[in-house]
C-alpha cells in the first residue's frame, strides 16, 4: 500500500553482514525493438551519482535478441556513464515479455548481487520491476523523484510522491537486497554523453525453452510517430484547461502551439471531455514533461497537474482568477480571459519570431 505509516524514530543501522557481497548500482536499460528508452540514460546519470557516493561501479543491464544491435546498446550505455554492462542475448528476448525478462533479470541479480537496481517507471519497467521484486522478495519503491545514499548506513533513501502528489515520503529498504526503485521518464536530467567512454561487457547466458514460455507476441503495432504526440520530449508545450470552457476555444491553444512549433498539452478534465487525446494529458496520471517553456491557459494548477509540469524551465500561466494556485509556482502570469489573451499572445509571438528571423 505504501502509505505513510507513523514509525518510531529510525535507529542507527549497521550494514547487515548478509549484504556484504551485494555491491554496485545497476540500471536496467530498456530497449524496445533495439531503441533505448531515454529514461534509461536519465537513470544512468542518476546511478552515476549513487555509485560515486558509494564508491562502487555502475552497471547497465542490457537484454535483447542475438545480434550486434543488442551489443551496441552496451556501448551507448558506457557513453552515458556505465562502467560495465551485463548483456543477455537470446531469441526469447526479442520482444518484451514478462516471463523471460523476469527470469533473466532475477538470475542476473542472484548471480552478480547488486545493492541497488533501478528501472524506468514505463509500462515495461513497471511490469518487470514488480515481478522481479516479488520473486526476489525485496523492496521496490515506485516513481521516485529523488534518490540519495544515507551516509552512515549506505542505504538508499528514495523519495516519492504519495496521495496524488500532495505529500512526499522517503522510503528505505534496510533489511533486503537489492534495493529497487523506479523513476518516471523526464524526472531526472539527461546526462551529457561522453563518446570517449568505454567499459567492460559481461555476457551472461540464460537458458530459455521457447515452447515452455506461455505468452506469445502475435503482433506489434507501433504508434505512428507522426501522429502520436511526443509530449515528454517537447521543448515547448502550450496546454489548456477547463477555463477554456468550450471545445471550440481549445483551438486557440493549437493556434499558439502552431506558431511556436510546440506540442499541445491538456489538463485531465479536457481529456475526459474528449477535447484532447489521452496522450496529451499532463500530470500525475498523465505525462511528466520537462519543456523549456510551458504555457498554461485556463488551468488551475491542481497538485495532480503540477507534479507533471513543474520541472519546466519557464512557466507562463494565464488565468482569470488572481488567486488560482498556478500563480504560486508559475514564473510569469497574466490575470485575464484566456480567450482574449491566447490570440494576443499568438500574434505577439508571430511578430517576434518574424523579427528575429529578419535579424538573422
Amino acid at each position, binding site marked *: 500500500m505504501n502509505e505513510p*505509516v507513523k*514509525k518510531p524514530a529510525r535507529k542507527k543501522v549497521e550494514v547487515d553482514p548478509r549484504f556484504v557481497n551485494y555491491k554496485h548500482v545497476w540500471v536496467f536499460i530498456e530497449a524496445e525493438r533495439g531503441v533505448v528508452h531515454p529514461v534509461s540514460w536519465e537513470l544512468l546519470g542518476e546511478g552515476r551519482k549513487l555509485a560515486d557516493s558509494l564508491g562502487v561501479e555502475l552497471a547497465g543491464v542490457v537484454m535483447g535478441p542475438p545480434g550486434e544491435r543488442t551489443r551496441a546498446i552496451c556501448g551507448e550505455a558506457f557513453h552515458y556513464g556505465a562502467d560495465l554492462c551485463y548483456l543477455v542475448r537470446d531469441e526469447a528476448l526479442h520482444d518484451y515479455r514478462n516471463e523471460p525478462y523476469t527470469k533473466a533479470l532475477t538470475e542476473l541479480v542472484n548471480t552478480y548481487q547488486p545493492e541497488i537496481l533501478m528501472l524506468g517507471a514505463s509500462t515495461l519497467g513497471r511490469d518487470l520491476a514488480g515481478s522481479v521484486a516479488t520473486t526476489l522478495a525485496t523492496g521496490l519503491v515506485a516513481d521516485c523523484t529523488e534518490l540519495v545514499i544515507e551516509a552512515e548506513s549506505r542505504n538508499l533513501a528514495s523519495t516519492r510522491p504519495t496521495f496524488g502528489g500532495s505529500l512526499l515520503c522517503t522510503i528505505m529498504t534496510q533489511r533486503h537486497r537489492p534495493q529497487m526503485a523506479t523513476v518516471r521518464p523526464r524526472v531526472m536530467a539527461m546526462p551529457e554523453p561522453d563518446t570517449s567512454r568505454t567499459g567492460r561487457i559481461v555476457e551472461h547466458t540464460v537458458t530459455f525453452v521457447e515452447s515452455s514460455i506461455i505468452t506469445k507476441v502475435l503482433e*506489434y503495432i507501433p504508434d505512428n510517430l507522426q501522429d502520436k504526440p511526443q509530449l515528454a520530449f517537447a521543448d515547448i508545450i502550450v496546454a489548456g484547461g477547463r477555463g477554456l470552457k468550450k471545445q471550440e476555444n481549445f483551438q486557440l491553444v493549437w493556434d499558439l502551439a502552431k506558431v511556436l512549433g510546440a506540442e499541445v498539452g491538456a489538463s485531465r478534465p479536457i481529456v475526459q471531455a474528449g477535447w484532447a487525446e489521452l496522450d496529451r494529458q499532463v500530470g500525475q496520471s498523465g505525462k511528466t514533461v520537462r519543456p523549456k*517553456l510551458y504555457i498554461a491557459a485556463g488551468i488551475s494548477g491542481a497538485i495532480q497537474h503540477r507534479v507533471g509540469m513543474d520541472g519546466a524551465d519557464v512557466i507562463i500561466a494565464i488565468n482569470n482568477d488572481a488567486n488560482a494556485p498556478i500563480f504560486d509556482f508559475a514564473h510569469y502570469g497574466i490575470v485575464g480571459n484566456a480567450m482574449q489573451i491566447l490570440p494576443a499572445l499568438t500574434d505577439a509571438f508571430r511578430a517576434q519570431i518574424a523579427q528575429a528571423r529578419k535579424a538573422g
Partner: protein
Amino acid sequence: MHSVVCIKQVPDSAQIRVHPVTNTIMRQGVPAIINPYDLFALEEALRLKDRFGGTVTVITMGPPMAEVALRKCLSFGADDAILVSDRAFAGADTLATSCALASAINKIRENMPVDLIFTGKQTIDGDTAQVGPGIAKRLDYQLLTYVSAIREIDHDNREIVVERRAEGGVQVLRTKLPCLITMLEGTNEMRYADMDDMFRAARYPLKLWDRVAAGIENPDVVGLKGSPTVVGKVFAPKPRNKRAEIVETIDNDPKNLAATLLAKVFTQHPKLEREIARLAK
C-alpha cells in the same frame, strides 16, 4: 468462467488537503471511493460474464469500512465479495499486500478454479502499479499489464488474446488461462447498478476473512513485518518561494499584456528567444 477482481477503497485524493502547519494529511470528511482504475477492471470482468457466463468475485484487503466498496461492486453485478481484513495487515507495502491477496485468492481457488484475475492499472493513493504483478508472480499466473482490450477467449484451448499498451506501440499477446490482467483506463465505462442488484448488494452476506481464514499461517509475511520497505519521513513538497511575476499594463488590454510579457520573458531568458526562433517553422 470465474474472474476475481481485486479492488481497493481509497481516499478521493482530489479532495485531500495537507495541514499547513503539521504537514499531515487531513482526511476528515474526505470521501472514500473505489479506486477509479479498478472500475475498468470490474467492468471488463462483468462484460466477460455477460458474454460467456460464469462468476465474478470481488476481493479487497482493507479495513472493515471497505465493506462499502465491496457492496458497491455487488450492486454493479459482482456475484460474490470477500473482505480480507485483519490488524496483522496494517502497514503493508506492496509486497506484503500482494502476499495477503494472493493467499486469499488461493483459498478462493479451493472452491472454484480462478481463470482470470483483474486489477486496475494502479491505485490513486499509492500509484505504484506493483500489486498486480506481485499477485501474478506469487500464484504463477501469466501477467498481462496495461491491457486495453480483450480480443478473444478460446475456451476449448483455454487461450486468451489481448492488446497491451507498450511504450512505443501496442502488443497483441496470446497466452493461456489462468492469467492476471491489469486494465488500462478509458477502456470501458462502468455500467449503472440496477435496482435488483442494489437490493441484493445491501443484504448480501459478504465474506469476512481474517489472516488465518485467508490462509496465512505466518503473521510475519504480511503487514508491516512482511514489508521490506519502510516509510521514513513524510513531508509536503517545498513551495516555490517566489510567486509568479504578474504582468500588468495600465489598460490591461490583451495586446499590450502579450507584448509586455514577451519583452519581459525574453529579457530575462535570452536563450529562450533563440530557442523559439529555431523551433518555429
